């Protein structure tokens, strides 16, 4: 007898026709004489497929609810009349099903004949040839003739739509199965497609019969993936033909960590198909991961090491050996002259865990100091601080899937549909099932108005008032007796709780008293607090709108307080969930990038911890924390910090107060930049070490749910070395030996030294697909939900979070508050996405402002506006938008010349120095020309590109890029 198939063992390359049932009741039925046991609610089609009896299908796919329109999947069931569709018929105990007999065969051939009579027969030249479900089914049913001919009405001449840069729509091939329509609704949640018309006239239509590009389509590609024919097809496949092999790897854009099958022809990626076995994305993705991979082979890639003595000189291409020894000599020279602490380095949240680990190891062991930091400093460092203080671990508490159990969801300062799109789609799915939604954001994010989603409350709080807001929420919960007394008594530290209760109960925290600070009507805030507290499962998701404030850490603790007070911790459907920006923010923090912590958040002052690292690394380690990024800049300006190794990070564009950063970078005597492009920072560098894209290396990324995903090399590194090999070679050049043969050996070392990683290895990752840390003796397969029984610090700790107003407030000179964010199609500093067709959606940063503020200043849509703060001034185009509240303006920082960070200040979070990107007091005025900074930027940029071109002109060159440092 065939047993029930564990979904973990299912074949992720196979389409089972309908989604898995989660029922725990098992039933047994017989299909073609084979007995099979499945969970109740499984369709006959899926049950058959599990037994490898594959019923032909066209309109069914296992990521969509069954629809039952094509009828090709008809079967016979003993004791029932007719031929029911197997995809819409649930399996029942004792059922006897026949899937193949002459009657069914004839029926299917007839159906197929009708389809084919309105379908072009140009299979040989069709881009789907070799991967077309219509072709397959025609073969399966044995179609041999089409009696109707093509003389009648048909759609063969229907016009194609090429408007989307990544896929084409050829309606002549459409069989109106509506898989695309359902994928857009059910999976993506955008509802951009409809079936227009009826019967023979019915056709797929984006928006109001618009081209795809002009419709609400967000180009996620779910419809393309769902289409069984070549109607919706990737342009890359149309151009190159069907791929011949594939490799499963992980997206290098955002913290969702989608897994993909990189479908290849030789060493060329033809398309990325979201992998059904990906435990964060289950076969879905967004436009960035699926389509925007072209940057990896963009002509701007730099593939040869380069050096120069000063940034006023042209670059010189040199061999790896020469570049590395040049760097090593300079860095050592600086240390001799200015002391051991005069150099440092920056790890990247875009690189792998192994690479990050190696960079901080190089700094601590080879540089001999703790001057290591990471770009996570500028986004989620308050998460680490805040969650470690309250819950005992610097990480989110849930899986993404957990949201499907949530009854009330509070989204604070996050924009999941733009910044974490695949999680956004899952969240929208849950909201369509009826979960309640509270959004706290100064700006109306898309989620607030998404189709079939009802937002209970959009709390439009004023930028900078977060802590006053979260305290008011807690005040309502405590003063109205909505807290979870049992949870608090059992799971939380009593003394801390009592102190906190006294603090939070003070009347000054009431919504009525804080209304003037937050701008949120008291009644609305009370209602929101009740919804969250009274929900069976209440979950909080937050983003950079929480962390990037002068009180970022306090706000994170305030959120944790709220979850503790309501007992919303330690099971599915609840929790405190930071939505991490970049793909490996979690990992780069875990891997010891911060100056005070060795890997696994182990403090450098802890003698026992240091002893373990010292014996493994064979060096003496400094027991004092090193400099953080902003401290490095200050020290550089004071002349005590002179050299830096910067991997995969563009601090010149991403860090606040650009003028200050540029001055600091100019003052360095040796800046070593390792990146795939000559990024903004590299324009100040003396050594350029070419990096490798995620397609060119092996390693792991850790996503926002603590999930360690494998990154697999699909093509050789363009510059000959993977990033970890470059770091290793630099270390060897500095005289500190490293001899890893493969990143798996680095992971083994990490596992040996990091208590939460003890059982992680490449072998286990291969077996389990992915692992959520902690993964050790106590949790050998990892930990999906944290804090189920206790906290790493024993009891949950309520933290007192006094609201302290930011120094950055609106004044007569700077009456507006500027806040910053991201959009879907571009990614962070845009180095990658700007080098893809994603440009079509966002080719410039704009300043969004409320119609009232625009009118007051005589600004029209599209005008140039100068935006000035006390830090600097830049110019952008205006976009008038009702999403904004009066007094608040908004922009993104995806393009270097727009200089959003020229305006942001060096204010930062009190605990972690995470910059206050979300609040800058500014003035906006209509102008006619770019700012001084932009003119200077343009000149400098021109000059540096000239320096680069000089280096490139010197080609052709000898075979000197042969691998160094091995």
């Amino acid at each position, binding site marked *: 007898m065939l047993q029930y198939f564990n979904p973990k063992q299912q074949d992720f390359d196979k389409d089972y026709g309908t989604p898995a049932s989660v029922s725990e009741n098992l039933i047994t039925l017989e299909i073609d004489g084979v007995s099979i046991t499945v969970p109740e609610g499984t369709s006959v089609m899926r049950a058959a497929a599990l037994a490898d009896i594959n019923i032909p299908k066209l309109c069914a796919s296992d990521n969509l609810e069954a629809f039952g329109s094509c009828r090709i999947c008809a079967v016979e069931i003993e004791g029932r009349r007719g031929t029911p569709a197997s995809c819409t018929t649930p399996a029942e105990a004792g059922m006897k099903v026949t899937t193949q007999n002459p009657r069914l065969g004839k029926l299917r051939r007839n159906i197929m004949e009708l389809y084919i009579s309105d379908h072009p027969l140009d299979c040989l030249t069709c881009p789907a040839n070799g991967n077309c479900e219509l072709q397959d089914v025609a073969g399966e049913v044995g179609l041999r003739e089409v009696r109707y001919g093509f003389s009648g009405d048909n759609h063969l001449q229907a016009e194609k739509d090429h408007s989307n840069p990544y896929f084409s729509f050829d309606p002549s091939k459409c069989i109106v199965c509506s898989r695309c329509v359902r994928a857009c609704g059910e999976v993506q949640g955008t509802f951009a497609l409809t079936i227009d018309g009826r019967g023979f006239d019915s056709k797929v239509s984006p928006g109001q019969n618009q081209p795809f590009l002009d419709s609400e389509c967000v180009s996620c590609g779910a419809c393309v993936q769902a289409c069984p024919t070549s109607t919706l097809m990737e342009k890359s496949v149309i151009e190159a033909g069907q791929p011949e092999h594939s490799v499963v790897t992980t997206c290098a854009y955002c913290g969702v960590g989608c897994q993909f099958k990189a479908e290849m022809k030789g060493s060329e990626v033809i398309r990325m198909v979201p992998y059904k076995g990906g435990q964060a994305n289950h076969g879905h993705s967004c436009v960035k991961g699926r389509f925007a991979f072209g940057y990896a082979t963009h002509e701007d890639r730099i593939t040869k090491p380069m050096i120069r003595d000063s940034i006023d000189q042209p670059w010189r291409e040199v061999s790896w050996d020469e570049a590395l020894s040049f760097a090593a000599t300079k860095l050592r020279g600086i240390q001799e002259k200015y002391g051991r602490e005069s150099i440092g380095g920056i790890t990247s949240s875009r690189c792998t865990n192994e690479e990050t680990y190696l960079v901080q190891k190089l700094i601590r062991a080879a540089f001999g100091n703790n001057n290591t930091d990471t770009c996570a400093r500028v986004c989620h460092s308050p998460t680490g601080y805040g969650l470690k203080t309250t819950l005992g671990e610097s990480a989110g508490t849930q899986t993404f899937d957990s949201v499907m159990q949530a009854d009330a969801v509070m989204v604070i300062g996050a924009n999941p549909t733009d910044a974490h799109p695949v999680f956004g789609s899952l969240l929208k799915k849950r909201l369509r099932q009826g979960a309640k939604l509270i959004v706290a954001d100064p700006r109306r994010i898309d989620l607030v108005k998404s189709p079939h989603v009802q937002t209970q409350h959009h709390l439009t709080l004023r930028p900078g008032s977060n802590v006053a807001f979260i305290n008011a929420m807690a005040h309502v919960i405590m003063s109205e007796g909505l807290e979870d007394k049992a949870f608090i008594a059992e799971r939380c530290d009593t003394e801390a709780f009592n102190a906190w209760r006294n603090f939070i109960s003070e009347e000054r925290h009431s919504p009525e008293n804080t209304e003037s600070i937050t701008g949120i009507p008291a009644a609305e805030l009370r209602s929101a607090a009740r919804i969250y507290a009274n929900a069976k499962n209440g979950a909080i998701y937050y983003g950079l709108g929480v962390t990037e404030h002068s009180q970022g850490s306090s706000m994170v603790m305030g959120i944790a307080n709220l979850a503790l007070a309501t007992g919303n911790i330690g099971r599915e459907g609840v929790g405190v969930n930071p939505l991490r920006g970049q793909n490996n923010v979690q990992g780069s923090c875990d891997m010891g990038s911060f100056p005070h912590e060795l890997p696994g958040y182990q403090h450098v002052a802890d003698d026992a911890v240091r002893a373990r690292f010292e014996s493994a690394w064979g060096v003496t380690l400094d027991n004092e924390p090193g400099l953080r990024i902003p401290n490095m800049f200050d020290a550089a300006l004071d002349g005590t910090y002179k050299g830096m190794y910067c991997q995969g990070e563009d601090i010149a564009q991403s860090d606040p107060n650009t003028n200050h950063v540029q001055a600091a970078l100019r003052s360095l005597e040796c800046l070593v930049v390792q990146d795939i492009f000559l990024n903004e920072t590299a324009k100040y560098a003396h050594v350029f070490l070419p990096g490798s894209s995620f397609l060119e290396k092996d390693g792991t990324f850790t996503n926002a749910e603590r999930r360690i995903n494998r990154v697999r090399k699909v093509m050789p590194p363009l510059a000959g070395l993977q990033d970890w090999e470059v770091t290793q070679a630099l270390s060897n050049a500095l005289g500190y030996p490293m001899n890893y043969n493969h990143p798996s050996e680095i992971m083994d070392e990490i596992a040996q030294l990091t208590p939460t990683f003890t059982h992680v290895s490449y072998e286990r990752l291969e077996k389990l697909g992915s692992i959520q840390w902690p993964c050790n003796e106590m949790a050998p397969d990892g930990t999906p939900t944290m804090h189920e029984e206790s906290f790493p610090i024993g009891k949950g700790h309520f933290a007192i979070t006094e609201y302290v107003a930011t120094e950055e407030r609106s004044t007569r000179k700077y009456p507006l508050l500027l806040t910053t964010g991201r959009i879907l199609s571009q990614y962070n500093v845009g180095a990658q996405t700007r080098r893809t067709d994603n440009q079509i959606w966002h080719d410039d940063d704009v300043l969004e402002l409320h119609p009232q503020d625009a009118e007051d200043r005589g600004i029209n849509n599209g005008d140039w506006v100068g935006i000035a703060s006390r830090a600097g001034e830049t110019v952008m185009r205006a976009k008038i938008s009702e999403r904004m509240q009066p007094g608040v303006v908004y922009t993104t920082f995806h393009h270097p010349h727009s200089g959003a960070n020229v305006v942001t200040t060096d204010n930062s979070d*009190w605990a972690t120095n995470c910059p206050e990107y979300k609040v800058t007091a500014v003035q906006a005025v209509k102008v006619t020309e770019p700012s001084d900074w932009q003119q200077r930027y343009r000149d400098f940029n021109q000059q540096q590109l000239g320096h680069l071109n000089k280096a490139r002109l010197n080609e052709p060159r000898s075979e000197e890029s042969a691998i160094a440092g091995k």
Partner: protein
Amino acid sequence: MANHQLTSLIRMANQIAANNTHIGDENAEAEMVANHLSKFWARSMKAQISEYLNQGGDELTPIARKAIGLMSSAG
């Protein structure tokens, strides 16, 4: 005037103090701030701010002064 680092350090110390001043017990507050500084600040930063305190530390708030005093004596 050109001492960027010191200007930042003073600001940071005062900000840390401002965010830890609501427990009602000044000594406990100073201790929290001192702990924070020793845990997160680099050696050179601690040295600079201690020296600044020794020279008067005019721009430091009372809790920040107390905390830096505590930190230096423990250090």
